[in-house]
């Protein structure tokens, strides 16, 4: 609990107008599969906007990196002392953001449902809490990238605020309040309504979060 509270430096409230509200259900296996298959050929085949390729590939690199760190973690059930030296060599390449990591062979098990051995490896991997946390973060990034891709694919919507976060407010513990707005909002005729909506979200969002923290404290405080 203390660790969690130490990590919170700001409350961040963002508001977006969307075409449709879609539930973002986190299913680890599906997220693993979606990120595992990210590659240049896959992105090209899927018609993803080329400006986003490097950001999608970073997700794949981060997954590979998280797995390698688990292989080196003595507390993990995936720890393999025979692979330590090899993995350490790969780790230096995987830590770099350039494309050189794409040349090394993947250690991640392939998520193919009809291969029992491979699937049991994936299931074992998905029992690791550390990896689940990484997958959750990668999933959030992927959802944002997918949304951005939809905007870029549709030339008419590039200067539109739909499907992008148009306003974000960060209430920092050091007292600073940082507001960020999408450039497109300046061109909106109804920007006053949008700003009011965000202001309302900010005011209530902060109170809502505070109530959630009170609940956490009521459960965990020792």
């Amino acid at each position, binding site marked *: 609990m203390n660790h969690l509270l130490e990590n919170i430096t700001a409350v961040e409230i963002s508001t977006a107008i969307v075409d449709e509200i879609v*539930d973002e259900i986190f299913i680890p296996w599906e997220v693993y599969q979606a990120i595992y298959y990210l590659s240049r050929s896959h992105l090209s085949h899927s018609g993803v906007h080329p400006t986003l390729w490097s950001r999608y590939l970073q997700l794949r690199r981060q997954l590979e990196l998280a797995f390698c760190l688990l292989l080196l973690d003595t507390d993990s059930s995936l720890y393999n002392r025979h692979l330590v030296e090899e993995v350490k060599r790969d780790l230096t390449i995987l830590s770099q953001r350039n494309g050189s990591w794409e040349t090394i062979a993947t250690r991640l098990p392939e998520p193919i449902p009809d291969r029992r051995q491979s699937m049991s490896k994936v299931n074992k991997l998905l029992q690791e809490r550390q990896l689940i946390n990484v997958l*959750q973060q990668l999933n959030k990034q992927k959802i944002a990238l997918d949304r951005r891709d939809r905007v870029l694919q549709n030339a008419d919507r590039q200067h539109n605020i739909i499907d992008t976060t148009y306003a974000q407010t960060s209430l920092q513990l050091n007292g600073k309040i940082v507001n960020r707005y999408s450039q497109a909002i300046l061109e909106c005729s109804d920007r006053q*309504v949008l700003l009011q909506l965000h202001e309302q979200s900010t005011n209530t969002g902060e109170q809502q979060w505070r109530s959630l923290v009170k*609940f956490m404290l009521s459960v*965990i405080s*020792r």
Partner: protein
Amino acid sequence: MNHQPLPQTFAQRLNESIQIESLKINRRPIVYRVSFCFDPQLLAEIEQIKAIDAKLKLSSKNLANLRHYALKNLPLAAIYDDLGRHKSNHNNSALTFTTQYIAAPDRPAIAVLRSAIDPEGKISQQVRQDLYQDTLLLTRISQAHHWLVLEILTQLPLKTKAWYSSLVCVCFFIGVAIACSLVWYLIPLTYLFKIVICLCLIMLAKLSFKPFIIPKLKAGITYHLLDGLFAKGSNKKKIGLKILSFLIACN
């Protein structure tokens, strides 16, 4: 500030509009959102309630289910470490509240507003495009949505009463008394040894009660609320949460 209670029928209708939605993943039900279903009448009622500054009292079933949903999404790794159960299947993610609106009885419910509140301080709001084009309705729905979310979240913290801790202490010392009686009647030792053992037992229990036994019991009950005995069914959740509030009172 004195808050007026809601008329029974309003409170019932509002409670009925709160749905905790789940789907089965790997044969386990996973709650993925809390949804509110508003129609023009309910929206008008909420505005009246807000105008008189009344408070919504969640039904005990809703409260237990909502607390359970929140508990499932808290980062409780520290408690699991106490028990050595690292491989729980719960995820800490954002609590999601979605408002659906039925414009007319013959029209389907459409998700128009969504708030995702992450325990780590990230809050995201999504508004459906159609709603944002109707400014008046947008204001009414967003105010009702935020009011209801806040009403729910302010009622989540577990409540304790002064006598809870006394009751837990009494139960604990009854347990110690039983242990001492067993030592006294079952162990074939001289009186002196029996007295020494009983005194040691009482001392040990007193020293370990708050720093060791209570945290372990809390971790155990929390584990059973998430994945064990108290994880299914509103009544079991209510029992688990009640035991947890008794233990919390001993902090």
